């Protein structure tokens, strides 16, 4: 029994990262109908920003304690990563949108931006891996044979909190209503006097900011950083978002955890070689049965 509970906790932690990243995908897709393939790499940039922020604050210049560093690093990392996301939007996506480029070209641009982020990191920092410092003093609780660390609890709660906050913003606030409006009809929205560019920038701030948070928490949980760490996890989170129903916040959240549970479950029962095979076969079957994803709505094209 404790074996199963232990694996549920493992899956909850792993799924939290998928959920956090999938939320960023779904947010940008929901508003812009743009698959931001650079999102996984923004997550990677977030982890590196967290590394430098933490290194600076722990360093001789400031010499803060690890706990204070953690508390300050969270908003700072989110802010700086959001800046990176907004820069991408300004440099890459907005000019294309202004010119009315087809969605395909924007997706290709996003892929290129991701590669540029990866390889500029490789060029600047080199291939050597970095070790993330320990910010939260790790406590291991042993509850009847099940071990939980405080870090795992923080990660799981962060994922839930981010989901609740985003859900609130999108469904209950005015700016959320504007976001949904752009998603519905981006040509009519400016006629209502809603500043479409500002809303899109806000979307990128939210999505990238939470990718930065995910990067920080990931670096704390798996403290070995490398330039390509965001690629695979980004793609998987994107698939999780699609299975959940891309464009829907709940879909990304549940899709992320679903993938985490399937992956950990497969490894527990089968050799790890089958992990991705089984995980993505299951997801494929879900899409067969419900092509719009678990929470997605079918879209009709207006003429």
């Amino acid at each position, binding site marked *: 029994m404790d074996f199963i509970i*232990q694996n549920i906790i*493992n899956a909850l932690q792993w799924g939290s990262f998928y959920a956090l990243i999938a939320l960023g995908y779904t947010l940008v897709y929901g508003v812009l109908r743009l698959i931001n393939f650079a999102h996984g790499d923004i997550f990677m940039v977030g982890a590196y920003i967290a590394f430098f922020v933490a290194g600076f604050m722990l360093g001789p210049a400031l010499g803060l304690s690890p706990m204070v560093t953690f508390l300050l690093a969270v908003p700072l990392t989110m802010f700086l990563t959001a800046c990176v996301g907004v820069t991408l939007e300004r440099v890459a996506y907005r000019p294309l949108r202004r010119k009315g480029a087809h969605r395909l070209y924007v997706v290709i641009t996003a892929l290129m931006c991701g590669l540029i982020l990866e390889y500029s990191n490789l060029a600047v920092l*080199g291939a050597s*891996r970095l070790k993330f410092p320990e910010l939260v003093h*790790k406590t291991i609780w042993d509850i009847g044979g099940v*071990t939980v660390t405080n870090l795992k609890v923080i990660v799981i709660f962060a994922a839930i909190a981010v989901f609740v906050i985003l859900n609130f913003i999108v469904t209950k606030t005015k700016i959320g209503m504007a976001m949904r409006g752009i998603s519905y009809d981006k040509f009519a929205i400016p006629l209502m006097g809603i500043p479409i560019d500002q809303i899109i920038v806000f979307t990128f701030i939210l999505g990238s900011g939470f990718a930065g948070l995910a990067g920080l928490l990931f670096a704390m949980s798996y*403290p070995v950083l490398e330039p390509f760490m965001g690629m695979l996890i980004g793609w998987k989170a994107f698939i999780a978002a699609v299975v959940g129903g891309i464009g829907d916040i709940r879909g990304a959240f549940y899709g992320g955890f679903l993938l985490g549970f399937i992956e950990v479950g497969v490894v527990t029962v089968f050799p*790890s*070689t089958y*992990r991705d095979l089984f995980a993505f076969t299951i997801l494929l079957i879900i899409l067969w049965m419900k092509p719009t994803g678990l929470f997605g709505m079918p879209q009709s094209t207006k003429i």
Partner: protein
Amino acid sequence: MKLSLHKTGLLALAFVLSFLMIVPAFAADTIKIGFNLPLTGDIPEVGDGSKKAAEMYLKDINDAGGLEVGGKKYQLEFVYMDNESKAESAVNAALKLIEQENVVAIIGPNSSKQAVPAGGTCNDNRCPMITPWSTNPDTTKDRPWVFRAAFLDPFQGPVAADFASEKFGAKTAAVLFDVSNDYSKGLAEIFKAAWEKKGLGPVVAFESHGTKDQDFSAQLTTIIKANPDFIFVPDNYNQVALIVQQARDLGYQGPFMGSDAWGTPDLIKLCGEQCYGNYFSTHYAAAGATGATKVFIDRYEKTYGSTPADYAALTWDSIGLLVQGIQNAGKVDSNPRKERQLIRDGLAAIKSFDGITGKSKFDAQGDPIKCAVVVKISDQGEFVFEQSVCP
């Protein structure tokens, strides 16, 4: 008229350029050696350390006026090619070195994951290859053109098993390995066979993971549930750092036993205190070295400011082997194809070699028979000599 002048100028330029490109091919007084190294990718430290050792060797030879073969001095030229720590890129790098760079021999790749496929390519293209660090038997098996400087996993696996059963008094073992890495998978299987042959107790868990995995908690939960006396982890240092930490988080208190892929200063940088007190088998121990080994270590430390890891020392020995092979050949042929044949025969003629990672004899397969050492990671994060095991 103006146009034709322009054209003549271009043509002249093209002539000069092509002449410049042809010249090195005619220059017979250099010997060009290729290096197939993981300068980026999963294990960049390994490529970097090998390259540093090679640069040191190159400087030694060329500053002394070159390498003397058959009464004439030849300058060495090293070409470094990045294989991105990937199997397919290692094959491409080997082909590029052979076909475009026209090297007479290749040193590397280091890791078996790259050395096994690249060895096949070199053997098919009849180019001698020496792998410094690969321990998988398949690298040289039935490949007369491929040689190595390291001991083999069929030797290393039992060393690890014997040591763990003695040191930890272990009766049961668990293994966690990288299923997509030839080195890790091969060694894990050899270890399992060696452990079960001892008849102490079973291998209670035999779990695998993928190269890009970062979360091992599901596998480790299964391992910990099986309650082994120790966990054998034949993995690269970057994964070890994550595995050890996650095992401790899941409440595992027992020891770990590692293999030679642990032996990188980066292990301590990434893993920190959590790796202290564990053991791994490797090719040499830098702490407490004597003789030529100490000279090498001191020079490396003075030049680069860090202790050379085993792959750096083995790269040094590989170059030494190659140099001896070239000298055994007795002459240098300006045709790279003929020169490769000469070097291969020269290498095959080496019966024993006294390198900085120890003395070795060569068997019929071209594999060295040499001693292994077991190293302890001390509380200062140093690799301290614990035990030497000879075949």
